[in-house]
C-alpha cells in the first residue's frame, strides 16, 4: 500500500514535538469553580458531576492549530496534562514548586497558574479529594502518606477508574441524539426522584455537554474561516465548522466526521473520569463501514484517509499525564494508555483484517508517535501480508505494535463471563489488559502489588531487615522449612496478609468512586449502563471486575527456584545462610550469591524454573479470588508492571535469586535481564508455557532482539517467525524492541540528540528522553542481554 505521511501531518508532528509539555490548570480551575460557586448541593452527585463536565467543556479554551483537519484540545496548551484535584490531583501538587525544574518529565506552568492552583484549587479539595472521602480522617491521612511512597501496594484507583474501551461503535451509530432518545425511553420506566432517574438525567446533561463542546469548535472554525486569507485553508476551516455542527450530535456520515466525533468524545471522556487509558479500541473495525462507503462513492481514497488517521493519532499525543515525581516512579514515560487495536477476528470468528488495518500498520511505522498505544491482534487466520508488514516494521526498529494472540485472549475474556461474540470483539486497555469492547468496566489498573516484598517478609519472619517493627504477618522462622513447599506456604501467608489489607483499602476506594466520582458520559458510552439505569462507577456496565497486578513475580519465582536448587536439592547452603546473606546484601557472601545466580532461572525453557513462575502466578490469582469487587465482578490478576518493578524494587532488600537490595525487579513476565542464556526461542517458549489462563488482566512480555537481527536481509522474516512460533506455542502477548544499544547509550548521554527515539517500556511506548535515568538504564541492559549468541562457527 503506497501511502505516505503528508507534509501537513509532518508539520503537525513537528509542532507537537516542539511544544513544551505544560501542567494545565484549566480543568482544575473550572471544576473547582463549578463546585464552589454553581453546584447545587441538594442535587444528586451524579448530576452535579454531569453539570461540572458541561461547565468545563463549555468554558475551556478552544484552539484550532494551523493545518489541523480534526479539532479539539485536551488542555489549554498544545501539549499538556490536566489536573484532577477531586481524585489524586492534590497529591500531584506536591510538585507544585518543582514541575519546571525536575529533571525527569518537567512540566511548565502558565504565568499565574501556580498561584491560582495554590489559592483556589488546593484549599477547596484538600479535605475533599477521593482518598479523604474514602476513609475516616486519620486513616485517610495515613493512607495518602503511604501511597505516595508505597511499599506493599499502590492503589491506582484512588485516582479514578477510567481504563475502558468506550462504545464508539454506539456513538457512531446513534450520535448523542440517539442516546437522548434511548434515555428518554428509559426515563419512562423509572420512579421520579429515584437514583435511577438522576442517573438517566445526568446522561442527558452529558449529551448536552458534548454537543456544546462541538458547537464551540464549530463557532471557532467559522470565525477563523472568516478571517482566513488562504482560500484552501478557508475551505478546510469551513469543513471543520460543518463537521462540528453535525457530530457528535448526529451519527457521522463521512470518515472525517466519524474521526471527529470519536476525538471529541475521547477528549471529553478523559476530562470527565481520568486521563488514563481511555482506549479507543478497534478503530479499523469501527471506521470500516464508513471508509468503505466513502471510498466506493469516490469521496475518499487511501491517502486521504491515511492523512486523517495521522491527524487523529497526533491529537492523542497532545495529552500527557501530570504526575508528581513520586507518582512518576510507578508510571514513568508520559503514558496515557490510549490503545488503538487493529486486526484479529470479528464477532463471528472470521478474520477482520481490512484495508484500514493495513493503513494503521503503515501509520505505526511511518509516523512513530508516543500515543496512541498501538496493539495488533493475531490469530491463525491473519493474512500473511499483515503479519509480514508488522514484522518488517518491528525489525526496522518501530516499537509498535505490541502483539496479541487471539487464541489465548479470547478464551481468557470469555472466562470472565463475556459471551463468545463479545470476547472475540475484545480490545486492550491501557498497557496490556484485554476487555470486551464497549461494555466492560474492569478497573484494569486498580492496584499494583509488591510480591517480592512478601517473599522478603517470609524469609525474615514478617519483619524487613533493619525495620523498626513487623509489617508483615507473624510467620514462623524460615529455618523450619523442610521443603520448598514450606517456603511457598510462608510466602502465601505473607501475600494473603498483604492482599487482605489491599482489598480492604480498595473496597473503600471503590465505594468512594461510586459515591463521589460517578461518570455519566463514560456510562453513556458503556453498554449496560443506560439499560441498567446505573452509573458505571456503581457497576452499571455489562461486565464488571477489577484487575490487580502482581509485580516482581519472576524475581520471586527465581528466588524460590534458587532456594530449591541450592538448599533442598544440592544441599550446598541452608535457608538460614541464604536469609542472612540477603539481610546483608550478600556482603562477604559473593560465592553464595554466584551459586544462587547460577541456579536454573526462568526464561531458558527449563520446565522446573518456568513452572515455579506459574506456581507463583497461580498462588497470587487464587488469593484474589476470595473476594469480589464492590461494583460486582471478580478480582483478577495481571502481570505487567508499568515502571513499578523499579519503584517497588527500591524498598526491597536482596533476594535469593541474587538480585541486590534496591535493584529493579524484572518487568512483567519477562525474564530478569541477563537470566536468559539460551536465546529468544527458549525465552519465548518459557513465556508461552506459563499458566496464562490465570493472567486474566493481561501480562507483558518483552522480546529484545539485537540490532543485527534487524540489519540482516532476513531479519523481518526471522522476527515474524519468532512471533508466529511463540503464538503457536501458546504465547499471549509480545512487545518487540529491535534497538541498537549504541544508539541508546548515546541518547542517554546526550538527551535531546534523539528526540524521536521511541522505546517499548512495559505495555506501552515512550520517548527515551522522557524516561528516568534508571529506566533508561534498564532499557539499555535489556537490549544488551537480548543479543543472541549467534557467532558463526565453522570447522
Amino acid at each position, binding site marked *: 500500500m503506497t501511502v505516505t505521511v503528508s507534509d501537513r501531518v509532518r508539520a503537525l508532528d513537528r509542532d507537537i514535538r516542539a511544544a513544551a509539555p505544560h501542567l494545565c490548570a484549566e480543568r482544575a480551575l473550572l471544576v473547582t469553580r463549578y463546585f464552589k460557586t454553581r453546584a447545587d448541593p441538594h442535587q444528586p452527585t451524579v448530576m452535579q458531576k454531569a453539570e461540572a463536565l458541561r461547565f468545563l467543556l463549555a468554558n475551556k479554551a478552544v484552539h484550532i492549530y494551523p493545518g489541523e483537519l480534526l479539532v479539539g484540545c485536551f488542555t489549554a496548551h498544545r501539549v499538556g496534562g490536566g489536573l484532577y484535584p477531586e481524585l489524586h490531583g492534590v497529591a500531584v501538587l506536591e510538585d507544585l514548586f518543582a514541575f519546571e525544574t525536575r529533571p525527569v518529565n518537567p512540566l511548565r506552568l502558565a504565568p499565574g497558574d501556580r498561584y491560582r492552583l495554590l489559592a483556589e484549587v488546593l484549599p477547596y479539595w484538600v479535605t475533599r479529594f477521593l482518598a479523604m472521602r474514602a476513609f475516616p480522617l486519620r486513616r485517610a491521612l495515613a493512607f495518602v502518606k503511604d501511597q505516595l511512597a508505597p511499599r506493599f501496594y499502590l492503589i491506582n484507583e484512588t485516582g479514578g477508574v477510567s481504563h475502558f474501551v468506550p462504545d464508539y461503535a454506539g456513538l457512531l451509530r446513534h450520535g448523542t441524539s440517539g442516546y437522548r432518545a434511548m434515555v428518554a425511553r428509559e426515563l419512562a420506566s423509572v420512579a421520579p426522584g429515584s437514583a435511577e432517574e438522576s442517573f438517566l438525567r445526568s446522561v442527558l446533561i452529558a449529551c448536552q455537554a458534548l454537543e456544546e463542546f462541538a458547537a464551540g469548535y464549530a463557532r471557532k472554525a467559522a470565525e477563523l474561516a472568516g478571517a482566513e486569507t488562504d482560500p484552501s485553508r478557508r475551505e478546510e476551516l469551513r469543513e471543520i465548522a460543518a463537521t462540528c455542527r453535525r457530530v457528535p450530535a448526529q451519527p457521522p456520515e463521512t470518515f472525517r466526521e466519524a474521526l471527529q466525533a470519536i476525538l471529541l468524545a475521547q477528549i471529553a471522556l478523559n476530562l470527565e473520569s481520568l486521563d488514563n487509558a481511555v482506549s479507543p479500541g478497534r478503530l479499523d473495525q469501527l471506521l470500516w463501514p464508513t471508509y468503505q462507503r466513502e471510498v466506493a462513492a469516490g469521496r475518499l481514497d487511501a491517502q486521504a484517509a491515511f492523512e486523517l488517521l495521522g491527524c487523529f493519532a497526533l491529537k492523542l499525543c497532545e495529552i500527557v499525564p501530570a504526575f508528581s515525581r513520586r507518582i512518576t516512579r510507578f508510571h514513568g514515560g508520559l503514558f496515557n494508555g490510549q490503545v488503538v487495536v487493529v486486526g484479529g477476528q470479528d464477532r463471528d470468528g472470521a478474520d477482520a483484517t481490512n484495508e484500514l488495518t493495513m493503513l494503521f500498520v503503515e501509520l505505526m511505522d511511518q509516523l512513530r508517535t508516543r500515543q496512541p498505544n498501538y496493539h495488533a491482534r493475531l490469530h491463525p487466520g491473519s493474512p500473511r501480508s499483515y503479519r509480514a508488514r508488522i514484522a518488517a516494521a518491528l525489525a526496522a526498529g518501530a516499537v509498535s505494535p505490541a502483539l496479541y494472540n487471539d487464541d489465548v485472549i479470547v478464551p481468557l475474556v470469555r472466562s470472565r463471563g463475556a459471551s463468545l461474540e463479545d470476547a472475540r470483539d475484545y480490545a486492550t486497555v491501557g498497557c496490556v489488559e484485554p476487555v470486551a469492547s464497549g461494555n466492560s468496566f474492569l478497573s484494569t489498573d486498580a492496584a499494583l502489588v509488591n510480591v517480592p516484598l512478601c517473599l522478603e517478609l517470609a524469609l525474615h519472619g514478617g519483619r524487613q531487615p533493619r525495620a523498626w517493627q513487623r509489617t508483615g504477618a507473624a510467620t514462623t522462622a524460615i529455618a523450619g522449612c523442610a521443603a520448598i513447599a514450606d517456603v511457598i506456604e510462608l510466602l502465601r501467608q505473607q501475600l494473603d496478609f498483604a492482599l487482605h489489607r489491599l482489598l480492604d483499602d480498595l473496597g473503600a476506594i471503590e465505594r468512594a468512586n461510586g459515591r463521589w466520582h460517578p461518570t455519566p458520559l463514560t456510562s453513556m458510552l458503556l453498554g449496560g449502563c443506560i439499560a441498567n439505569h446505573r452509573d458505571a462507577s456503581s457497576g452499571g456496565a455489562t461486565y464488571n471486575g477489577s484487575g490487580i497486578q502482581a509485580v516482581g513475580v519472576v524475581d520471586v519465582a527465581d528466588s524460590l527456584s534458587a532456594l530449591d536448587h541450592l538448599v533442598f536439592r544440592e544441599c550446598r547452603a541452608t535457608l538460614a545462610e541464604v536469609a542472612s546473606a540477603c539481610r546483608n546484601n550478600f556482603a562477604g557472601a*559473593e*560465592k*553464595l550469591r*554466584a*551459586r544462587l545466580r*547460577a541456579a536454573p532461572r526462568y526464561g531458558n*525453557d527449563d520446565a522446573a524454573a518456568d513452572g515455579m513462575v506459574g506456581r507463583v502466578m497461580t498462588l497470587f490469582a487464587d488469593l484474589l479470588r476470595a473476594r469480589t469487587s464492590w461494583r460486582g465482578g471478580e478480582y483478577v490478576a495481571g502481570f505487567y508492571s508499568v515502571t513499578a518493578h523499579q519503584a517497588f524494587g527500591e524498598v526491597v532488600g536482596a533476594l535469593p535469586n541474587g538480585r541486590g537490595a534496591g535493584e529493579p525487579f524484572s518487568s512483567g513476565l519477562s525474564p530478569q535481564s541477563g537470566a536468559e542464556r*539460551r*536465546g*529468544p*526461542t*527458549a525465552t*519465548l*517458549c518459557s513465556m508461552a508455557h506459563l499458566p496464562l489462563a490465570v493472567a486474566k488482566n493481561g501480562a507483558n512480555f518483552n522480546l529484545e532482539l539485537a540490532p543485527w537481527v534487524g540489519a*540482516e536481509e*532476513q531479519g523481518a*522474516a*526471522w522476527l*515474524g*517467525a*519468532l512471533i*508466529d*512460533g*511463540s503464538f*503457536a*506455542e501458546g504465547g499471549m502477548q509480545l512487545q518487540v524492541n529491535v534497538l541498537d544499544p549504541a544508539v541508546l547509550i548515546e541518547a542517554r548521554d546526550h538527551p535531546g540528540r534523539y528526540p524521536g527515539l521511541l522505546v517499548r517500556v512495559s505495555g506501552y511506548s515512550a520517548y527515551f528522553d522522557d524516561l528516568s535515568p534508571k529506566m533508561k538504564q534498564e532499557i539499555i541492559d535489556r537490549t544488551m542481554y537480548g543479543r*543472541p*549468541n*549467534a*557467532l*558463526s*562457527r*565453522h*570447522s
Partner: protein
Amino acid sequence: MQQQGLIFDVQRFSVHDGPGIRTTVFLKGCPLRCRWCQNPESLRPRQEIAFFAERCRGHGDCFAACPHAALRRSPAARLDRERCTGCGDCAGACAAAALRRVGRSVTVAELLAEVSRDRSFYASSGGGVTLSGGEPTLQMPFIRAFAAAATGAGLTVGLQTCGAFSWSAFAPLLADLALIHYDLKAIDGRLHRELTGADNRAILSNARELAERGAPVLFRMPVIPGANDTADNLEAVARFVLGLGARRLHLLRYHALGESKLAALGQPRPPMPDDGLASRHAEASLSGAVRRLRELGLEVST
C-alpha cells in the same frame, strides 16, 4: 533411540546454519586439526574440563571436590590432564563457573526431545536441526539414528561436515538429510595436510559422490588469511566445485575466537602464524576471495 552421542552444545535460534530458525547440535570430536580452529572444545572425542583462569576467584572448592587429586593450586597449571578423568565434579563445585564441563552424552531420544522444543519455530520459519561439530560423522551410528528419528518426527535435518568420512558408512544417512554444508579448505593434498593435519582424498571423493547423487549440498570454504586464500588454492577450489557441476560456494569469514578457549582446554596453540594479523586481514582476504571466485565463474555468498 538409546544410542549415545557426545555433544558439547545445543544452540537454539541459529539462523546462519541453514534456512529459517534452526537448532544447531555440536558434536564432539574431529579428525582434522585445522590451524585456525575456532572450536577447540570440539576436537577431542571425550568429555573434558575447561578451566577459565580469569574467572577463578580462588575459592578452592574444586580441590576438595576432585576425587582424583587432579587439581593444583596454581591457576596457571590448575588441571593435571593426565589424572583428570573428566568426571565433572569440580565444575559442579565451582561457584565461579571457572571450571566447566565440556561435552555431555545424550541418547537419541533425549536429543530429539531437546531439539523438538523449538518445533513451532521451525514450522513458522522453514527451519530445522543442523548437526555440526566437531565432525558429526565421527559419530556415524548416532547421527544416523538421530537423523532418522528426527525426520520421522517431522523435523528436517541438516549436516555440516568436513567430508572426512567413509562413504559406505555415510550413504544410509543421505536420505534423512535436507541440507549438507560441505566444507572445503584446500584442494592440493600437501597444502591440506599442512593446514589441517589430514589427508583430503576422502574429502574430495566424498564430494564427488554427493554431487553425482544430486545431494542437497552447499559447498563452503573458510577463508583464512595467509593460509588458504592464495591464488592457487582459490583457483583449485573453483575448478573443483565447478567440475562437480555445482555453481555456488559459500565463504566463511575468519574470526579469531579460539585462543582463550584453547588455553582453557590446556591445548598447545596450533601453529597459526599470527592470529592478530590474520584477523586484521580477514575482511580484505574475504573480499579478495569473493572477487576472484566470482571471476572464476562461481556464485559466491558470504
